[in-house]
């Protein structure tokens, strides 16, 4: 993932639209719920349909650079209601692995 800021503006627009539907704190989100959120988020960002998003593909294959990854984690943080590390998409580099990890984390944090 390259270090670019070009998508920061874009990200905040995405976050407003995708999060306005659901603004509740999801302290005990399941892996499936988190996965759905990430699929919708990436689909909207990439202007794809949700069913075109493969949950096993690494984020950077979707062209998600570091700024976009920060935007995604920031929005996910507001949705899920727990503080998230900006480096998470690097340690858990696909939708599936990230969702599974966060579901575990949010259980621990309740």
């Amino acid at each position, binding site marked *: 993932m390259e270090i*670019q*800021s070009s998508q920061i503006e874009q990200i905040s627009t995405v976050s407003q639209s995708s999060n306005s539907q659901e603004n509740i704190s999801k302290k005990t989100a399941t892996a499936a719920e988190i996965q759905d959120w990430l699929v919708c988020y990436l689909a909207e960002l990439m202007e794809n349909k949700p069913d075109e998003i493969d949950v096993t593909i690494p984020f950077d294959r979707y062209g998600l650079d570091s700024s976009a990854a920060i935007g995604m984690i920031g929005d996910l943080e507001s949705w899920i209601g727990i503080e998230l590390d900006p480096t998470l998409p*690097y340690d858990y580099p696909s939708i599936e692995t990230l969702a599974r990890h966060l579901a575990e984390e949010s259980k621990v944090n309740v």
Partner: protein
Amino acid sequence: MYRCSILEESSCQKEEIAMNTLKTQNLGTSAEAIKHHYDVGNDFYQLWLDSTNTYSGALWEENDANDTLELAQLRKLDFHINQARAKGAKRVLDIGCGWGSTLKRLIEVHDVEQAFGLTLSKAQAEWIASLNLPQAEVKLESWQDHSPVEPYDAIISLEAFEHFTKLELSHKERIAVYRKFFSHCHQWLKPSGWMSLQVSTYGNSRREDSSQFVFTEVLPETDFPTLAEIIEGSERIFEIVAIRNYRQDYEYTLKAWLSRLKANRAAGIELVGKEVVSRFEKYLSLSSICFHQGISNLFCFTLRRIDNPRKDSSC
């Protein structure tokens, strides 16, 4: 010993003359650009830095779940003070002294008689003046213009080096600035004096990959060196006694700052506005990714002054 330093001066003359063209020119961060970053408000930085207001990577104790940002910062300061052999010294210089945490530590814990600090930030100089440290002397002055009345026993510089050049400089200009910096430190140090330096560098990345956001919006007129450039800049002026990469420690520090800033977001917005707070959050997030991934490194150098630099080279 003194004869030795006179000889060194003459061997430095050639370089000094060559440097004259650079003398009045500031090839690093301007006072204006420093203000943009460091003078956004002392109270804002206090919200997310530790209680000592140290603004550089801390050194964490691995496997100690009870370690805190404060302890890690003090451990870092003590590390550099030890590396620079500054304990009990008469005169110690801190180049780029921030809000004075190293000066305070030198005086209060390490029995240093006089601690001198240089900064380009007015807000920092004012802050240090308010600390009531009669043995500390702070100048709002660039290292380029510094000219001490007496030599120093030791020099420390933590993450100021990144401000000495900017992105657009050529390799030659950059190395000339770094050599000038090390030559000045050489002149200011007593024979066999030590220096401890902490610098963020490019790691598994190239200058052309560097973030426009960081180097224009957050830290304008700033640039990282590479490890090789620091070595080239110091060769035959200082002997490198130890180098260590603490990039993971920097990742933890950046995350600790980010977490504190997020926890104090509302207070931050109140002080400096939403735009500045989100700029800093983005900057800390991006930087923690860079140090996590090894895109950037954090090097600590222990350097010893070479008292008889090879004559026919630039000193």
